[in-house]
């Protein structure tokens, strides 16, 4: 153990080493053996311990530090998670809500458009052709026809090139009928979307609209699987009337 710097020649050193490890039961050998055995034992134990154990061999302060780190990291991740979740909720409800609102608004727009006559309509229905060479069919007869079709459940009606809506007016003019300011001349063609059988029956019933037409006029009713009411009605924004309750679900 002393720091003797003197370097002995090799053969001496080897001889001393050989003498040191020569088998011989001396007190020095036994003591050295015991201590070195303890060292080997401790070494192997520690190696095994170190291999198999991670956290359990750390001291308390290290464990506290690691625990702190893990806790902080968990807190950060938790807040990030809640942020992301709220973002996700926002996005999904926002997307769903606006999509649903858009879809509902589209549906409503379609329904109202068909009713108000601002959109073309398509569906099964009937086509009524009125030949009137003598121009004997006057406005009241056409109005009766339209009313009968409405009663029979017609959802969209087109007379000539005019869409028939709630405010449609029929006026007698020379050589024809003026419908909503558009002059129509015979022959008249009426398209009505609805239950074609019901409408045809309503028109052709004895004593009904077609039977009441003037003698010179002749009407034919043809059921169509699909017909298109393409004439549009120009809606004027109401000048005085305002919706009483914008949220009231009427329609």
């Amino acid at each position, binding site marked *: *153990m*002393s720091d*003797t710097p*003197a*370097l*002995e*020649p*090799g053969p*001496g*050193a*080897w001889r*001393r*080493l050989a003498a*040191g*490890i*020569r*088998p*011989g*039961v*001396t*007190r*020095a*050998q*036994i*003591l*050295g*053996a*015991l*201590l*070195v*055995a*303890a*060292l*080997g*034992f*401790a*070494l*192997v*134990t*520690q190696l*095994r*311990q*170190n291999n198999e154990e991670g956290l*359990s*061999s750390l*001291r308390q*302060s*290290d464990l506290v530090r690691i625990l702190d780190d893990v806790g902080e990291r968990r807190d950060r991740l938790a807040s990030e998670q809640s942020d992301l979740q709220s973002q996700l909720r926002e996005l999904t409800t926002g997307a769903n809500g606006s999509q649903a609102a858009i879809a509902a608004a589209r549906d409503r727009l379609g329904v109202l458009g068909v009713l108000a006559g601002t959109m073309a309509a398509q569906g099964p229905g009937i086509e009524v052709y009125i030949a009137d060479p003598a121009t004997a069919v006057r406005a009241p007869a056409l109005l009766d026809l339209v009313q009968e079709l409405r009663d029979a459940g017609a959802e969209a009606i087109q007379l000539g090139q005019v869409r028939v809506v709630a405010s449609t007016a029929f006026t007698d003019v020379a050589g024809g009928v003026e419908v909503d300011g558009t002059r129509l001349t015979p022959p008249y063609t009426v398209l009505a979307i609805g239950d074609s059988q019901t409408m045809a029956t309503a028109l052709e019933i004895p004593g009904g609209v077609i039977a009441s037409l003037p003698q010179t006029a002749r009407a034919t009713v043809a059921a169509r699987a699909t017909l298109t009411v393409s004439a549009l009605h120009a809606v004027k924004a109401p000048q005085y009337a305002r919706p009483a309750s914008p949220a009231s679900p009427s329609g």
Partner: protein
Amino acid sequence: MIPALGLIAGVVLGLVLQPSVPIWAQPYLPIAVVAALDAVFGGLRALLDGIFDDKVFVVSFLSNVIIAALIVYLGDQLGVGSQLSTGVVVVLGIRIFSNVAAIRRHLFHA
């Protein structure tokens, strides 16, 4: 020869018994092992120097182990246990290197 056999016996005993280190000893055992290694190399060097003394070896071995453990214990109590452990390991490592260098010079003249 007998110390070498003792080392082998210790290693075998550790492998066979597979003891677990008690928790109170866990911070100190690695330092104690390094200190004991230092003592062993020091003893080997003393042997080659021709000044080996069994009493000195036993005392240095035990004192090395005890002092190393004591320093680490003190460091733990002061809150600088890990740093002191590192310091002890560095010092012992330097000593082991110098002892091994001396042994090498003795045996190989290099």
